[in-house]
Structures are given as C-alpha cells and as structure tokens.
C-alpha cells in the first residue's frame, strides 16, 4: 500500500531537464527523506508532485488516484500540503491570518480545533498570533510555515528544507516537532533536506538524488552507514 507513488517522472524547465526519470514511493505513516546536493532537483520533485511545473513524462499517483495532470489547487485539495523552500509566509499578514490561509482547503468548522492543535505544537505561535509574519525570527517563520501547512489537515506533508538558515538548536527543535507530528498524528511526511545527518536519523527511509536521478535508497540507518553517502553528504559534518 502506498500513499504517494512517483514513477518515471521527467520534468523540464524549458530545455533543462531537471528530473530525469524519478521513481519513489511513500507509504502511509512514514517519514521519507530526500537528500542531495544543491541543484540536484529535490525542490523540483516536490513542486512536480504539486503540479507546478507539470511532469513531462511519467506518472504520479496519490492515494490511488492519478494526479499527474491535475492543476495545483486540485492536487492540494486532495490532501497534500506543501511548505515550500524559503518558508514563503505572508509577511504583511499576522500569524493568525497566515494560519487562516493554511486552512483555505479545510472545512470552516474545523478551524478552531486545528488552530488549537497547531498552537499546542508551536506554543510560540500563540504568543505571537497578532504579530506580522514578516517580523518573526527565521525559526518562528519556519514554524509558522509548518503550522500553516498543518492547518489544511493534510494526509501528506511535503517539507522543503525546513532547517534552512536556522541555528543548530532551532534545527533540533524543528526536527523533533516533525517526529512528534508523525508519531502523534501519524502524519506522513516527505522531507527534503540538506542536513543529511539529522534527516536520515529522523526518517524511516531515505532517497539520495544526484542530477535529477535517484541513485540510492534504503532505510535511514542503512544510508547513514553507507560509505558513499558518508563521503558525499556527511564528511566533516556531524
């Protein structure tokens, strides 16, 4: 049983082929991580799942249905939430309004419950609820981006480099929240990361992407022990 299955996906930016036949599977309740160098195509894969850009070849199935050709908003409405790279919160809107935007696809009567749930996960957001998004610190903005994605009650959460530009302590905090969401709410998470060590320790399974292709996959522990992975992504680090 798979929640998301990507098979043979190619994606182009004009004539640049950013994804060159990607196969990947995510099962319900898993945390799956995708690691790779800058420009490998990780963000492109997440965006292709959301239909923007559209896959030129191959197919993407979510929860049994083919979503390859659907427009982005229709894909999101099926239960995928995407916290894009660089947080992209709404800077002039308050924290509360940002969270409200996250609930766009949800039922209005669930709003209060979902809000309470997000505030339990990120108490800092409750303290800052009337502050403008643009005036939050980087870590708070990242929490807001994740919180906003959770407001839609997704069945699959796509996170694109949540640790980007954050201090080690805050990274730890974010990662423990991801684990918590996964364990407590059995949320399925697809996590793209540069921070390979933390990501592989957290994830049930991982994939390694090089130049638009998946070159390796295995459990988090297997990849952590793999000498190629160690040489390329972990040396000199943790």
């Amino acid at each position, binding site marked *: 049983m798979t929640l998301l299955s990507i098979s043979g996906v190619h994606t182009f930016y004009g004539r640049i082929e950013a994804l060159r036949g990607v196969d990947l599977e995510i099962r319900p309740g898993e945390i799956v991580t995708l690691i790779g160098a800058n420009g490998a195509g990780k963000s492109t894969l997440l965006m292709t799942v*959301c239909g*923007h850009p559209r896959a030129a070849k191959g197919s993407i199935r979510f929860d049994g249905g083919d979503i390859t050709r659907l*427009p*982005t*908003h229709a894909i*999101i*409405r099926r239960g995928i*939430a*995407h*916290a*894009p790279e660089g947080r*992209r*919160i*709404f*800077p*002039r*809107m*308050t924290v*509360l*309004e940002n969270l*409200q*935007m*996250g609930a*766009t*696809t949800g039922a209005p009567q669930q709003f209060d419950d979902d809000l309470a749930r997000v505030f339990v996960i990120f108490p800092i957001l*409750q*303290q800052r*609820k*009337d502050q403008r998004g643009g005036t939050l610190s980087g870590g708070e903005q990242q929490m807001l981006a994740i919180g*906003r994605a959770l407001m*839609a009650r997704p069945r699959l959460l796509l996170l694109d480099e949540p640790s980007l530009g954050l201090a080690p302590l805050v990274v730890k905090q974010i990662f423990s929240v991801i684990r918590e969401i996964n364990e407590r709410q059995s949320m399925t998470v697809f996590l793209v990361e540069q921070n390979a060590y933390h990501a592989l320790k957290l994830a049930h399974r991982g994939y390694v992407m090089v130049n638009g292709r998946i070159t390796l996959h295995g459990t988090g522990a297997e990849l952590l022990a793999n000498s190629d992975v160690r040489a390329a992504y972990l040396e000199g680090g943790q």
Partner: protein
Amino acid sequence: MAAETADTPQHPPQDGIAAILKDAGIAALISLALALPLFGFRIVGFGSGRGLALEERWDWVVTAVLAVFAGRIALNLWLRRFRAVLAIGGRVGDGVGDKIGQAVAAAPRLGRILQAAKPAFRIAVAGALLAVALAWPAFPFVDRYLLDLGVIVLTYVMLGWGLNIVVGLAGLLDLGYVAFYAVGAYSYALLALHFDLGFWECLPLAGAFAAFFGIVLGFPVLRLRGDYLAIVTLGFGEIIRIILINWYPVTNGPNGISGIPRPSFFGLPFAADPPEGTVAFHQFFGLEYASTQRIAFLYYVILALALVTNLFTLRIRRLPVGRAWEALREDEIACRSLGINPRNTKLTAFAIGAMFAGFGGSFFATRQGFISPESFSFIESAIILAIVVLGGMGSQLGVVLAAVLLIGVTEFFRELEQFRMLAFGAGMVAIMVWRPRGLLAHRDPTIRLHARGEKA
C-alpha cells in the same frame, strides 16, 4: 536661527551667493526653454471662420522665468537654513502659496496621526466622516456648488474604493479602470433610452455588463504581472474609448449620448412643472420646487453606492476569497501551494472591481444626462489610481482622505483656472514626500481571536 552659524564650512558666504545665482540662472534657462512653447504661444480663432492665428504671450514667459529664478534662489537659501529670509519672502508673498502649503501639509499630518493611533480611533474618525457626509446637504453653508462638489468627491471615493479591491487588495495594477466606468455609463444610457428602463433597474445590469467586461479582459491577461498587466490594461482602457468614438450607430461617436433620463425619487420626477398626469417630488411632499432637491437626492444616491462599496469590501476581506486576494498580492507561489487557484481569484477581484466601476458609471450618466467618450480618458484612470495609491494601497479610510484632498484641493483653487492642476500636482508631491507609502499604509488584520475563553 542665526545666518552665520547655519552656513556649512564648504560654502563660505560670498562663494555661496555666486553659486546660488548660477544655479538659479540655470533653472531660469530651463524654464525659459519650457515656457516658450508652453506659455509663449497660443492659438486663437481669427475672425469668423477665416482661420487660426498664433498669439504671442511674452509677458507670461517673462513671469514664469522670473518666478523660477526667484523661487530657486529662495529654495537654495532655505536649504542653507536662512530661515529668516524665507519668512520675509513668505510675508511678502500673496498668501496663495501659504494656503496651498497648509492645505497639503494637513493631510499627511493627519495620516501620520491616524496610522499611529489605535484601530478604535480610526473607527471614530471614520464615523465622524460618515456623520459629516450624511449631514452635508443640511449644513447651512452648503450651497449648490458645495453640494455638487460633494457629489464629485463621493464619486471618486466610490471609484477609489472599487479600484482598491483590484489594486489595493489583490495587487493587480490596473491602469484602465475607467473603461469599466465607461461601460457602466453607456450601458445605462443605452438601456434607458432604448428599453425605457429606469435608473434602479439599469444599475444592476450596468454593473453586470461591466463585470462581464472585466472577466473578458481579465481572462487572457491576468497571467501577466506588474508592469505587463499595467500596460495591457492601459491599452484596454484606450480600446474601449476608441470603440466608443467609432461605433457611431450605437454610441453616436464623439457627439455622445444626450437626453439620458434623470433618476426619479421612487417614481416621482424632479421637475419644476412635470408632464400631465405625473406628480413631481416637490408637489408630493408639498415643498417649494428647488433644483437643489435633485442634487441632494443624487448626493444621497452616490453616498449610498459608495457605502455599499465600502461595506462590501470590509466584509469580503474577512471571507476566504478576500483573504486570498491579499495573500495573492503578497506571495503567489505560497498561495498556489495552499490550494488557491490564482487565476480565478484574480478574476473575481477584477470582475468585482469592474462591477463597482459600472455602478459608478451609471450614476455618472444619470447625473450628467449626457455622456461622451471624452469623459472616459486615461486621466480619469490616473486620478482614481492616484487616490488609491496616495491613500495607502488597501486602506479604505486612506482612499477617503486622498479623494477629499486631491479633488477638494483642486476644486478649492478653481479660481486659478488652468493652473489648478498645479494644486493637484502639489498635493500628490506633498503626500509622496511626507508619506511615501501613502496616507494610511497601515493594514488592519481581518481576524483576531475572540477574547472569550482564553487569554494568551
């Protein structure tokens, strides 16, 4: 205060005077080059149909050049903080400059105060403005001219609020807003003349036509952003105007449409001696006939239309679609990843903005009784956009302040005839200097947690 201490070390006094004179001379030369073609010649009609002749106006040119020369010196002296000199100059001046200065400086100051204040204070100010607007026709000093001025200002307030949906909330730079205003005006005029429909029946139809045009235009162009969208909408505005000029059989071309029915008070016409069998407004209420009754009625019609626009906007900002507009202005990619359909969301903003322009257009047609393509030129779009931008993009109260300031001040200096546009320009410059982000750049959040239950 003292002139000596204010002088900067790099500019010793003698040197300074020479530099100032040189600078003023250059400015005077530039103004000479500008004034010669602009003021120097004027085309006048010659006898009866014998042709045109050029009239030379050297006195105007000389005045302009001297004014720039003197003004430039004064400015430079002021920049060097010879405030004493300026004070003398101010006393010598005939006071018109002072008047402009005070008027245009008041609004930015007001904007600053309002923005810093609590929301409750802004609501109080809005309430006070509303009370003044409601009572305006009843004030003893309000004569027919001031009543007309009120109608004009309210028309711009309404159009400003309508455009605010498109530009202020959804962030779509629309330079052709007047096209929808024209569609509304012509819809009303044609429907009323050919199908014998009254103002109140035509109003929704005109709004619907304008909204339809908004969708037709918006559909292909809303993929464009920023500057590109602005250019296309600018072009659309011109296309509509040119169609109105050339589609002779329907629009009567440049001659326009006259004899557009005036609105009636729920069936009671405003007329000194109504046609046989009808009762006029003043007869029904047992009043003396006065032409201001009709104007006052028009005033309340446009006030109601404006308030409807405002209430609609305040309400829709709290609904998902309104929130999506504002979010879209901030970050389209983020919106997409939250499941918002950007194209449809933009289309609704465009169509709803157009609809309000259509309402405004019908009102314009019924007020004037005559419309022609000339009333719908680009300058109208520019003025409405200026009101929105100077008001502070998205601020409802800001639109009111900017409309009152720009239209009011311009009218205030009507005696200056063609130079009153200078007052308009001065108003714009003043706002941009003192409040570069608009009079009220503040954005009120649309949601706060209800206080009951929890206290964060």
